[in-house]
Protein backbone atom coordinates (compact mmCIF):
# COMPACT_ATOMS: atom_id res chain seq x y z
CA UNK A 1 0.00 0.00 0.00
CA UNK A 2 2.72 2.45 0.95
CA UNK A 3 5.13 1.32 -1.75
CA UNK A 4 3.69 3.37 -4.67
CA UNK A 5 4.07 6.49 -2.57
CA UNK A 6 7.67 5.66 -1.72
CA UNK A 7 8.65 4.30 -5.12
CA UNK A 8 7.45 7.35 -7.05
CA UNK A 9 10.53 9.12 -5.73
CA UNK A 10 12.89 6.65 -7.40
CA UNK A 11 14.25 7.50 -10.88
CA UNK A 12 11.42 7.59 -13.41
CA UNK A 13 11.36 5.98 -16.84
CA UNK A 14 12.60 9.03 -18.71
CA UNK A 15 15.42 9.52 -16.22
CA UNK A 16 16.52 5.90 -16.54
CA UNK A 17 16.33 6.08 -20.32
CA UNK A 18 18.86 8.92 -20.52
CA UNK A 19 21.02 8.07 -23.49
CA UNK A 20 24.63 7.08 -23.21
CA UNK A 21 27.23 9.69 -23.99
CA UNK A 22 29.77 9.52 -26.81
CA UNK A 23 33.07 11.33 -26.38
CA UNK A 24 35.45 12.31 -29.16
CA UNK A 25 38.96 11.71 -27.83
CA UNK A 26 40.83 13.36 -30.69
CA UNK A 27 40.08 16.77 -29.22
CA UNK A 28 41.87 16.08 -25.94
CA UNK A 29 45.63 16.72 -26.05
CA UNK A 30 47.99 14.77 -23.82
CA UNK A 31 48.01 16.09 -20.26
CA UNK A 32 44.52 17.58 -20.57
CA UNK A 33 41.09 16.49 -19.47
CA UNK A 34 37.51 17.30 -20.27
CA UNK A 35 34.31 16.99 -18.28
CA UNK A 36 31.31 15.43 -19.97
CA UNK A 37 27.83 14.95 -18.60
CA UNK A 38 26.48 11.45 -18.29
CA UNK A 39 23.16 10.76 -16.60
CA UNK A 40 23.11 14.25 -15.18
CA UNK A 41 26.50 14.02 -13.54
CA UNK A 42 29.96 15.04 -14.70
CA UNK A 43 32.63 12.55 -15.81
CA UNK A 44 36.34 13.20 -16.23
CA UNK A 45 37.98 11.99 -19.42
CA UNK A 46 41.71 12.49 -19.01
CA UNK A 47 44.47 11.99 -21.53
CA UNK A 48 47.28 11.01 -19.17
CA UNK A 49 50.96 11.65 -19.72
CA UNK A 50 53.63 8.95 -19.46
CA UNK A 51 54.74 10.31 -16.11
CA UNK A 52 51.24 10.15 -14.70
CA UNK A 53 50.76 6.56 -15.83
CA UNK A 54 54.11 5.49 -14.40
CA UNK A 55 53.38 7.19 -11.12
CA UNK A 56 49.96 5.52 -10.93
CA UNK A 57 51.37 2.08 -11.72
CA UNK A 58 54.23 2.34 -9.23
CA UNK A 59 51.92 2.65 -6.24
CA UNK A 60 51.69 -0.57 -4.24
CA UNK A 61 48.23 -1.70 -3.23
CA UNK A 62 49.13 -1.65 0.45
CA UNK A 63 49.37 2.14 0.32
CA UNK A 64 45.77 2.48 -0.78
CA UNK A 65 42.65 3.04 1.27
CA UNK A 66 40.53 1.47 -1.48
CA UNK A 67 42.94 -0.97 -3.20
CA UNK A 68 42.61 -1.10 -6.98
CA UNK A 69 45.33 -1.41 -9.61
CA UNK A 70 45.76 1.31 -12.18
CA UNK A 71 45.32 -1.33 -14.89
CA UNK A 72 41.86 -2.21 -13.54
CA UNK A 73 40.87 1.43 -13.51
CA UNK A 74 42.08 2.21 -17.02
CA UNK A 75 40.47 -0.78 -18.68
CA UNK A 76 37.26 -0.29 -20.61
CA UNK A 77 34.25 -2.58 -20.19
CA UNK A 78 35.12 -4.29 -23.47
CA UNK A 79 38.54 -5.19 -22.11
CA UNK A 80 40.48 -2.59 -24.08
CA UNK A 81 43.43 -1.37 -22.04
CA UNK A 82 44.83 1.97 -23.12
CA UNK A 83 46.43 3.46 -20.03
CA UNK A 84 46.59 6.97 -21.49
CA UNK A 85 42.80 7.22 -21.18
CA UNK A 86 41.27 7.51 -17.74
CA UNK A 87 37.47 7.79 -17.56
CA UNK A 88 35.86 8.26 -14.19
CA UNK A 89 33.20 10.06 -12.18
CA UNK A 90 33.92 13.71 -11.44
CA UNK A 91 31.99 13.76 -8.17
CA UNK A 92 34.12 13.38 -5.06
CA UNK A 93 33.05 10.23 -3.22
CA UNK A 94 32.88 12.19 0.00
CA UNK A 95 30.02 14.60 -0.61
CA UNK A 96 29.87 15.06 -4.35
CA UNK A 97 31.89 18.18 -5.15
CA UNK A 98 33.84 18.30 -8.41
CA UNK A 99 37.56 17.95 -7.58
CA UNK A 100 40.16 20.19 -9.17
CA UNK A 101 42.25 18.34 -11.73
CA UNK A 102 45.46 18.72 -13.72
CA UNK A 103 47.81 17.35 -11.11
CA UNK A 104 46.22 19.04 -8.12
CA UNK A 105 46.66 17.83 -4.57
CA UNK A 106 49.50 16.09 -2.81
CA UNK A 107 49.40 13.07 -5.12
CA UNK A 108 49.50 14.87 -8.48
CA UNK A 109 45.98 13.89 -9.39
CA UNK A 110 42.85 15.58 -8.13
CA UNK A 111 42.05 17.63 -5.08
CA UNK A 112 38.57 18.29 -3.74
CA UNK A 113 38.40 21.82 -2.32
CA UNK A 114 35.24 21.20 -0.31
CA UNK A 115 36.59 18.98 2.42
CA UNK A 116 40.16 18.32 1.33
CA UNK A 117 40.29 14.86 -0.27
CA UNK A 118 43.39 14.05 -2.35
CA UNK A 119 43.27 11.63 -5.29
CA UNK A 120 46.31 10.28 -7.18
CA UNK A 121 46.86 10.27 -10.94
CA UNK A 122 44.66 7.18 -11.18
CA UNK A 123 41.79 8.85 -9.31
CA UNK A 124 42.34 6.72 -6.21
CA UNK A 125 41.67 8.21 -2.79
CA UNK A 126 44.92 8.80 -0.90
CA UNK A 127 44.11 11.29 1.82
CA UNK A 128 41.07 13.02 3.30
CA UNK A 129 37.51 12.06 4.24
CA UNK A 130 36.43 10.44 0.94
CA UNK A 131 35.88 6.70 1.49
CA UNK A 132 36.45 5.30 -2.01
CA UNK A 133 38.20 5.92 -5.33
CA UNK A 134 36.45 7.95 -8.00
CA UNK A 135 34.28 5.26 -9.63
CA UNK A 136 34.92 4.25 -13.23
CA UNK A 137 31.71 4.05 -15.29
CA UNK A 138 31.07 1.39 -17.90
CA UNK A 139 32.50 2.58 -21.20
CA UNK A 140 33.63 0.99 -24.44
CA UNK A 141 35.86 2.11 -27.30
CA UNK A 142 33.80 2.61 -30.46
CA UNK A 143 36.90 3.44 -32.49
CA UNK A 144 40.44 4.64 -31.84
CA UNK A 145 39.25 8.12 -31.04
CA UNK A 146 35.77 7.60 -29.70
CA UNK A 147 34.33 6.11 -26.52
CA UNK A 148 30.80 5.53 -25.38
CA UNK A 149 29.95 5.92 -21.67
CA UNK A 150 26.99 3.89 -20.39
Amino acid sequence: MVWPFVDQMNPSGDTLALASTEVDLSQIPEGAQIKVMWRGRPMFVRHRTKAEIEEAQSVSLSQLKDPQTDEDRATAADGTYRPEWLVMSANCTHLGCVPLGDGAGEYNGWFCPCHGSHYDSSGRIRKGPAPTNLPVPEYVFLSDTKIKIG
Partner: protein
Amino acid sequence: MSGPSTYKPKPGFETWLDQRLPLIRFANDTMIDFPTPKNLNYWWTFGGILAVCLVLQIITGIVLAMNYVAHTDLAFQSVERIMRDVNFGWLLRYMHSNGASMFFLAVYLHMARGLYYGSYKAPREILWILGVIIFLLMMATAFMGYVLPWGQMSYWGAMVITNLFSSFDQLIPGLGTSITTWLWGGFSVDNPTLNRFFSLHYLLPFVIFAVVALHVWALHVPGNNNPTGIEVKSKSETVPFHPYYTVKDGFAIVIFLMLFAAFVFFNPNALGHADNYIPADPLVTPAHIVPEWYFLPFYAMLRAVPDKLGGVLVMFGSIGLLFILPWLDRAKTKSMRYRPIAKQFWFLFIIAFLVLGYCGSQPADGPIVLVAQIATGYYFAYFLIILPLLAKLETPKGVPTSISAAVLSSDKKGQ
Protein backbone atom coordinates in the same frame (compact mmCIF):
# COMPACT_ATOMS: atom_id res chain seq x y z
CA MET B 1 -5.69 24.29 28.79
CA SER B 2 -4.67 23.80 32.37
CA GLY B 3 -6.22 24.44 35.69
CA PRO B 4 -9.75 25.58 36.28
CA SER B 5 -11.00 28.00 33.70
CA THR B 6 -11.66 31.57 34.77
CA TYR B 7 -13.81 32.36 31.77
CA LYS B 8 -17.35 33.53 32.40
CA PRO B 9 -19.28 33.75 29.13
CA LYS B 10 -21.68 36.64 28.71
CA PRO B 11 -25.30 35.62 28.24
CA GLY B 12 -26.47 35.24 24.68
CA PHE B 13 -24.12 34.25 21.86
CA GLU B 14 -21.04 33.68 24.04
CA THR B 15 -22.90 31.21 26.26
CA TRP B 16 -24.47 29.53 23.25
CA LEU B 17 -21.06 29.12 21.62
CA ASP B 18 -19.38 28.04 24.87
CA GLN B 19 -21.73 25.08 25.19
CA ARG B 20 -20.98 23.95 21.63
CA LEU B 21 -17.41 24.89 20.78
CA PRO B 22 -15.64 26.72 23.62
CA LEU B 23 -13.39 28.74 21.34
CA ILE B 24 -13.55 31.94 23.34
CA ARG B 25 -12.93 30.05 26.57
CA PHE B 26 -9.89 28.47 24.97
CA ALA B 27 -8.50 31.79 23.78
CA ASN B 28 -9.21 33.36 27.15
CA ASP B 29 -7.51 30.65 29.14
CA THR B 30 -4.41 30.43 26.96
CA MET B 31 -3.76 33.98 25.90
CA ILE B 32 -5.62 36.32 28.24
CA ASP B 33 -6.07 35.07 31.78
CA PHE B 34 -3.25 32.55 31.62
CA PRO B 35 -1.30 32.98 34.88
CA THR B 36 2.31 33.80 34.01
CA PRO B 37 5.19 34.21 36.50
CA LYS B 38 5.74 37.88 37.04
CA ASN B 39 9.52 37.66 37.10
CA LEU B 40 10.14 36.65 33.46
CA ASN B 41 12.95 38.62 31.84
CA TYR B 42 13.45 39.59 28.19
CA TRP B 43 14.93 36.19 27.37
CA TRP B 44 11.36 34.91 27.68
CA THR B 45 10.13 37.09 24.82
CA PHE B 46 11.65 34.90 22.11
CA GLY B 47 8.70 32.50 22.13
CA GLY B 48 6.42 35.27 20.91
CA ILE B 49 9.07 36.48 18.49
CA LEU B 50 9.35 32.98 17.03
CA ALA B 51 5.60 32.77 16.53
CA VAL B 52 5.77 36.01 14.55
CA CYS B 53 8.69 34.65 12.50
CA LEU B 54 6.78 31.49 11.62
CA VAL B 55 3.67 33.37 10.55
CA LEU B 56 5.72 35.84 8.46
CA GLN B 57 7.59 33.01 6.75
CA ILE B 58 4.37 31.18 5.92
CA ILE B 59 2.64 34.26 4.54
CA THR B 60 5.57 35.48 2.44
CA GLY B 61 6.21 31.90 1.32
CA ILE B 62 2.68 31.33 0.07
CA VAL B 63 2.73 34.47 -2.07
CA LEU B 64 6.24 33.76 -3.36
CA ALA B 65 5.08 30.30 -4.42
CA MET B 66 2.51 32.01 -6.63
CA ASN B 67 5.38 33.43 -8.68
CA TYR B 68 8.06 30.77 -8.41
CA VAL B 69 8.68 28.01 -10.98
CA ALA B 70 10.24 24.78 -9.71
CA HIS B 71 12.18 23.76 -12.79
CA THR B 72 15.95 23.72 -13.23
CA ASP B 73 15.71 25.80 -16.42
CA LEU B 74 13.40 28.42 -14.97
CA ALA B 75 13.90 28.57 -11.20
CA PHE B 76 16.75 31.10 -11.23
CA GLN B 77 14.96 33.28 -13.78
CA SER B 78 11.66 33.12 -11.95
CA VAL B 79 13.33 34.30 -8.76
CA GLU B 80 14.89 37.20 -10.67
CA ARG B 81 11.49 37.95 -12.17
CA ILE B 82 10.14 38.17 -8.63
CA MET B 83 12.96 40.59 -7.80
CA ARG B 84 12.46 42.78 -10.87
CA ASP B 85 8.93 42.59 -12.20
CA VAL B 86 6.53 41.24 -9.59
CA ASN B 87 4.99 44.09 -7.59
CA PHE B 88 6.82 44.26 -4.25
CA GLY B 89 8.42 40.94 -5.20
CA TRP B 90 11.82 42.16 -3.98
CA LEU B 91 10.31 42.93 -0.59
CA LEU B 92 8.62 39.55 -0.27
CA ARG B 93 11.70 37.63 -1.30
CA TYR B 94 14.06 39.58 0.94
CA MET B 95 11.63 39.19 3.84
CA HIS B 96 11.50 35.46 3.23
CA SER B 97 15.26 34.93 2.84
CA ASN B 98 16.25 37.19 5.74
CA GLY B 99 13.28 35.92 7.71
CA ALA B 100 14.87 32.48 7.75
CA SER B 101 18.00 33.95 9.32
CA MET B 102 16.00 35.88 11.88
CA PHE B 103 14.02 32.74 12.69
CA PHE B 104 17.21 30.85 13.46
CA LEU B 105 18.73 33.74 15.41
CA ALA B 106 15.64 33.78 17.63
CA VAL B 107 15.51 30.00 17.97
CA TYR B 108 19.16 29.82 19.06
CA LEU B 109 18.59 32.50 21.70
CA HIS B 110 15.41 30.71 22.79
CA MET B 111 17.33 27.43 23.17
CA ALA B 112 20.26 29.09 24.95
CA ARG B 113 17.77 30.49 27.44
CA GLY B 114 16.26 27.05 27.93
CA LEU B 115 19.70 25.59 28.61
CA TYR B 116 20.64 28.32 31.08
CA TYR B 117 17.45 28.33 33.12
CA GLY B 118 16.94 24.55 32.96
CA SER B 119 13.65 24.84 31.12
CA TYR B 120 14.07 21.28 29.85
CA LYS B 121 13.76 19.73 33.32
CA ALA B 122 10.72 18.11 34.89
CA PRO B 123 7.90 18.77 34.36
CA ARG B 124 8.79 20.24 30.97
CA GLU B 125 10.62 17.37 29.23
CA ILE B 126 8.00 16.94 26.52
CA LEU B 127 7.85 20.68 25.97
CA TRP B 128 11.62 20.60 25.37
CA ILE B 129 11.50 17.56 23.08
CA LEU B 130 8.77 19.13 20.97
CA GLY B 131 11.03 22.16 20.70
CA VAL B 132 13.90 20.01 19.42
CA ILE B 133 11.54 18.48 16.85
CA ILE B 134 10.58 21.97 15.70
CA PHE B 135 14.28 22.83 15.43
CA LEU B 136 14.91 19.77 13.25
CA LEU B 137 11.93 20.56 11.04
CA MET B 138 13.17 24.13 10.70
CA MET B 139 16.56 22.90 9.56
CA ALA B 140 15.00 20.62 6.95
CA THR B 141 12.71 23.39 5.73
CA ALA B 142 15.48 25.99 5.55
CA PHE B 143 17.78 23.60 3.71
CA MET B 144 15.19 22.78 1.08
CA GLY B 145 14.19 26.42 0.73
CA TYR B 146 17.79 27.40 0.08
CA VAL B 147 17.86 24.96 -2.86
CA LEU B 148 14.92 26.60 -4.63
CA PRO B 149 16.64 29.62 -6.26
CA TRP B 150 18.89 27.08 -8.02
CA GLY B 151 22.07 29.09 -7.69
CA GLN B 152 25.52 27.59 -7.26
CA MET B 153 25.24 27.32 -3.47
CA SER B 154 21.73 25.90 -3.79
CA TYR B 155 22.93 23.14 -6.07
CA TRP B 156 26.13 22.28 -4.25
CA GLY B 157 24.52 22.58 -0.85
CA ALA B 158 21.89 20.06 -1.97
CA MET B 159 24.64 17.87 -3.39
CA VAL B 160 26.71 17.83 -0.19
CA ILE B 161 23.80 17.37 2.20
CA THR B 162 22.03 14.62 0.24
CA ASN B 163 25.39 12.89 -0.19
CA LEU B 164 25.60 12.63 3.60
CA PHE B 165 23.26 9.67 3.28
CA SER B 166 25.64 7.88 0.93
CA SER B 167 27.85 7.37 3.99
CA PHE B 168 25.55 4.49 4.95
CA ASP B 169 27.34 2.56 2.20
CA GLN B 170 29.97 2.04 4.88
CA LEU B 171 27.42 0.15 6.97
CA ILE B 172 25.68 -1.92 4.29
CA PRO B 173 27.15 -1.62 0.79
CA GLY B 174 24.56 -0.14 -1.55
CA LEU B 175 22.27 1.14 1.18
CA GLY B 176 23.52 4.72 1.01
CA THR B 177 23.51 4.81 -2.79
CA SER B 178 19.92 3.56 -2.88
CA ILE B 179 18.88 6.24 -0.42
CA THR B 180 20.55 9.06 -2.36
CA THR B 181 19.13 7.82 -5.67
CA TRP B 182 15.72 7.71 -4.05
CA LEU B 183 16.14 11.22 -2.63
CA TRP B 184 17.33 12.60 -5.95
CA GLY B 185 14.91 10.75 -8.21
CA GLY B 186 17.87 10.26 -10.55
CA PHE B 187 21.61 9.83 -10.50
CA SER B 188 22.44 13.31 -9.34
CA VAL B 189 20.75 16.38 -7.93
CA ASP B 190 18.53 17.43 -10.81
CA ASN B 191 15.07 18.54 -11.82
CA PRO B 192 13.15 15.81 -9.91
CA THR B 193 15.12 16.78 -6.79
CA LEU B 194 14.26 20.46 -7.12
CA ASN B 195 10.62 19.65 -7.70
CA ARG B 196 10.21 17.45 -4.64
CA PHE B 197 12.14 19.87 -2.47
CA PHE B 198 9.67 22.57 -3.45
CA SER B 199 6.76 20.33 -2.55
CA LEU B 200 8.25 19.50 0.85
CA HIS B 201 9.36 23.06 1.49
CA TYR B 202 5.74 24.09 1.11
CA LEU B 203 4.49 21.28 3.34
CA LEU B 204 6.89 21.37 6.28
CA PRO B 205 6.01 24.84 7.62
CA PHE B 206 2.50 23.63 8.26
CA VAL B 207 3.89 20.61 10.07
CA ILE B 208 5.98 23.03 12.12
CA PHE B 209 2.83 25.00 12.82
CA ALA B 210 1.14 21.89 14.15
CA VAL B 211 4.09 20.97 16.36
CA VAL B 212 4.20 24.55 17.62
CA ALA B 213 0.59 24.13 18.69
CA LEU B 214 1.62 21.05 20.68
CA HIS B 215 4.61 22.97 22.06
CA VAL B 216 2.33 25.73 23.32
CA TRP B 217 -0.08 23.17 24.73
CA ALA B 218 2.77 21.47 26.56
CA LEU B 219 3.84 24.86 27.88
CA HIS B 220 0.42 25.64 29.25
CA VAL B 221 0.12 22.48 31.31
CA PRO B 222 2.95 23.17 33.78
CA GLY B 223 3.10 26.88 32.91
CA ASN B 224 6.23 28.92 32.23
CA ASN B 225 9.54 28.26 33.85
CA ASN B 226 11.09 31.47 35.18
CA PRO B 227 14.55 32.90 35.92
CA THR B 228 14.60 31.43 39.43
CA GLY B 229 13.65 27.99 38.18
CA ILE B 230 11.30 27.65 41.16
CA GLU B 231 7.76 26.63 40.35
CA VAL B 232 4.98 29.10 41.01
CA LYS B 233 3.61 28.62 44.55
CA SER B 234 0.73 31.06 44.71
CA LYS B 235 -1.39 33.16 42.44
CA SER B 236 0.29 36.30 43.81
CA GLU B 237 3.46 35.29 42.00
CA THR B 238 1.76 35.47 38.64
CA VAL B 239 0.13 38.08 36.46
CA PRO B 240 -2.43 37.44 33.74
CA PHE B 241 -0.77 37.02 30.35
CA HIS B 242 -2.83 39.85 28.95
CA PRO B 243 -2.11 42.73 29.17
CA TYR B 244 1.15 42.28 31.10
CA TYR B 245 3.00 39.99 28.72
CA THR B 246 1.20 40.86 25.52
CA VAL B 247 2.56 44.37 25.89
CA LYS B 248 6.04 43.30 27.02
CA ASP B 249 6.30 40.68 24.26
CA GLY B 250 4.88 43.18 21.80
CA PHE B 251 7.65 45.62 22.65
CA ALA B 252 10.31 42.94 22.20
CA ILE B 253 8.75 41.82 18.93
CA VAL B 254 8.87 45.34 17.53
CA ILE B 255 12.53 45.74 18.53
CA PHE B 256 13.25 42.42 16.84
CA LEU B 257 11.35 43.53 13.73
CA MET B 258 13.55 46.62 13.60
CA LEU B 259 16.64 44.42 13.37
CA PHE B 260 14.84 42.34 10.74
CA ALA B 261 13.89 45.46 8.75
CA ALA B 262 17.45 46.78 8.95
CA PHE B 263 18.58 43.67 7.07
CA VAL B 264 15.67 43.54 4.63
CA PHE B 265 15.82 47.18 3.59
CA PHE B 266 19.45 48.17 4.03
CA ASN B 267 21.58 45.06 3.71
CA PRO B 268 19.42 42.30 2.27
CA ASN B 269 22.27 40.15 0.94
CA ALA B 270 24.59 40.41 3.95
CA LEU B 271 23.50 37.04 5.33
CA GLY B 272 23.46 35.31 1.96
CA HIS B 273 26.28 34.19 -0.26
CA ALA B 274 27.40 35.84 -3.50
CA ASP B 275 27.77 32.49 -5.28
CA ASN B 276 24.04 31.94 -5.11
CA TYR B 277 23.56 34.69 -7.68
CA ILE B 278 25.38 32.46 -10.17
CA PRO B 279 23.00 29.92 -11.77
CA ALA B 280 23.65 26.31 -10.76
CA ASP B 281 26.39 24.57 -12.76
CA PRO B 282 26.88 20.82 -12.18
CA LEU B 283 30.34 20.99 -13.76
CA VAL B 284 31.91 23.57 -11.46
CA THR B 285 32.02 23.46 -7.68
CA PRO B 286 32.49 26.86 -6.02
CA ALA B 287 35.93 27.19 -4.49
CA HIS B 288 34.57 27.50 -1.00
CA ILE B 289 31.28 25.83 -0.14
CA VAL B 290 29.64 27.07 3.01
CA PRO B 291 26.08 26.61 4.20
CA GLU B 292 23.98 29.46 5.52
CA TRP B 293 25.36 30.87 8.79
CA TYR B 294 22.83 29.06 10.94
CA PHE B 295 24.15 25.66 9.88
CA LEU B 296 27.83 26.50 10.31
CA PRO B 297 28.35 24.97 13.79
CA PHE B 298 26.93 21.65 12.63
CA TYR B 299 28.85 21.82 9.37
CA ALA B 300 32.05 22.32 11.39
CA MET B 301 31.27 19.19 13.42
CA LEU B 302 30.76 17.24 10.18
CA ARG B 303 34.17 18.32 8.92
CA ALA B 304 35.91 17.84 12.26
CA VAL B 305 35.77 14.06 11.87
CA PRO B 306 38.11 12.69 9.17
CA ASP B 307 35.85 9.69 8.53
CA LYS B 308 32.80 10.17 6.32
CA LEU B 309 30.29 8.09 8.28
CA GLY B 310 31.78 9.27 11.56
CA GLY B 311 31.28 12.90 10.59
CA VAL B 312 27.67 12.29 9.66
CA LEU B 313 26.98 10.44 12.91
CA VAL B 314 28.61 13.17 14.99
CA MET B 315 26.56 15.83 13.25
CA PHE B 316 23.25 14.07 13.72
CA GLY B 317 24.30 12.96 17.19
CA SER B 318 24.84 16.56 18.27
CA ILE B 319 21.13 17.20 17.79
CA GLY B 320 20.09 13.73 18.94
CA LEU B 321 21.68 14.49 22.31
CA LEU B 322 19.22 17.30 22.86
CA PHE B 323 16.38 14.78 22.92
CA ILE B 324 17.77 13.01 25.98
CA LEU B 325 19.10 16.13 27.70
CA PRO B 326 16.35 16.12 30.38
CA TRP B 327 17.67 12.75 31.55
CA LEU B 328 21.36 13.62 31.27
CA ASP B 329 21.18 16.61 33.58
CA ARG B 330 19.48 15.37 36.74
CA ALA B 331 20.38 18.35 38.92
CA LYS B 332 17.46 19.39 41.13
CA THR B 333 18.16 23.11 40.79
CA LYS B 334 16.92 24.32 37.43
CA SER B 335 18.29 27.82 37.07
CA MET B 336 22.02 28.30 36.62
CA ARG B 337 21.61 31.53 38.50
CA TYR B 338 22.12 29.36 41.59
CA ARG B 339 24.62 26.95 40.04
CA PRO B 340 27.90 28.87 40.01
CA ILE B 341 29.96 26.07 38.48
CA ALA B 342 27.45 24.92 35.88
CA LYS B 343 27.08 28.54 34.85
CA GLN B 344 30.76 28.73 33.88
CA PHE B 345 30.47 25.59 31.80
CA TRP B 346 27.37 26.96 30.15
CA PHE B 347 29.28 30.06 29.05
CA LEU B 348 32.04 27.84 27.73
CA PHE B 349 29.42 25.84 25.85
CA ILE B 350 28.09 28.98 24.16
CA ILE B 351 31.64 29.99 23.26
CA ALA B 352 32.37 26.51 21.87
CA PHE B 353 29.24 26.72 19.74
CA LEU B 354 30.26 30.13 18.39
CA VAL B 355 33.79 28.87 17.72
CA LEU B 356 32.28 25.98 15.80
CA GLY B 357 30.29 28.48 13.77
CA TYR B 358 33.47 30.35 12.94
CA CYS B 359 35.31 27.14 12.00
CA GLY B 360 32.44 26.14 9.72
CA SER B 361 32.83 29.37 7.77
CA GLN B 362 36.54 28.83 7.13
CA PRO B 363 38.26 26.49 4.67
CA ALA B 364 39.02 23.18 6.37
CA ASP B 365 42.78 23.64 6.84
CA GLY B 366 45.00 22.22 9.59
CA PRO B 367 44.53 24.50 12.62
CA ILE B 368 40.85 25.16 11.90
CA VAL B 369 40.12 21.43 11.90
CA LEU B 370 41.95 21.00 15.20
CA VAL B 371 40.04 23.87 16.82
CA ALA B 372 36.78 22.44 15.47
CA GLN B 373 37.67 19.04 16.92
CA ILE B 374 38.30 20.52 20.34
CA ALA B 375 35.05 22.50 20.25
CA THR B 376 33.12 19.45 19.04
CA GLY B 377 34.65 17.45 21.89
CA TYR B 378 33.53 20.06 24.37
CA TYR B 379 30.02 20.17 22.89
CA PHE B 380 29.60 16.46 23.50
CA ALA B 381 31.39 16.52 26.85
CA TYR B 382 29.09 19.26 28.10
CA PHE B 383 26.03 17.07 27.65
CA LEU B 384 27.49 13.63 28.29
CA ILE B 385 30.01 14.27 31.09
CA ILE B 386 29.87 17.74 32.60
CA LEU B 387 26.13 18.10 33.21
CA PRO B 388 25.65 14.55 34.60
CA LEU B 389 28.67 14.97 36.89
CA LEU B 390 27.73 18.42 38.11
CA ALA B 391 24.29 17.12 39.00
CA LYS B 392 26.02 14.93 41.57
CA LEU B 393 28.91 17.13 42.66
CA GLU B 394 27.76 20.74 42.60
CA THR B 395 26.20 22.43 45.62
CA PRO B 396 23.74 25.11 44.55
CA LYS B 397 24.12 28.51 46.16
CA GLY B 398 21.48 30.81 47.63
CA VAL B 399 18.40 29.19 46.14
CA PRO B 400 15.45 31.27 47.36
CA THR B 401 12.38 29.54 48.75
CA SER B 402 9.97 31.10 46.28
CA ILE B 403 9.66 33.53 43.42
CA SER B 404 8.37 36.18 45.83
CA ALA B 405 11.37 35.72 48.08
CA ALA B 406 13.71 36.08 45.10
CA VAL B 407 11.95 39.25 43.96
CA LEU B 408 12.14 40.75 47.46
CA SER B 409 15.83 40.02 47.84
CA SER B 410 16.69 41.50 44.45
CA ASP B 411 14.64 44.55 45.42
CA LYS B 412 16.78 45.01 48.51
CA LYS B 413 19.94 44.71 46.49
CA GLY B 414 18.61 47.30 44.08
CA GLN B 415 18.15 49.86 46.90
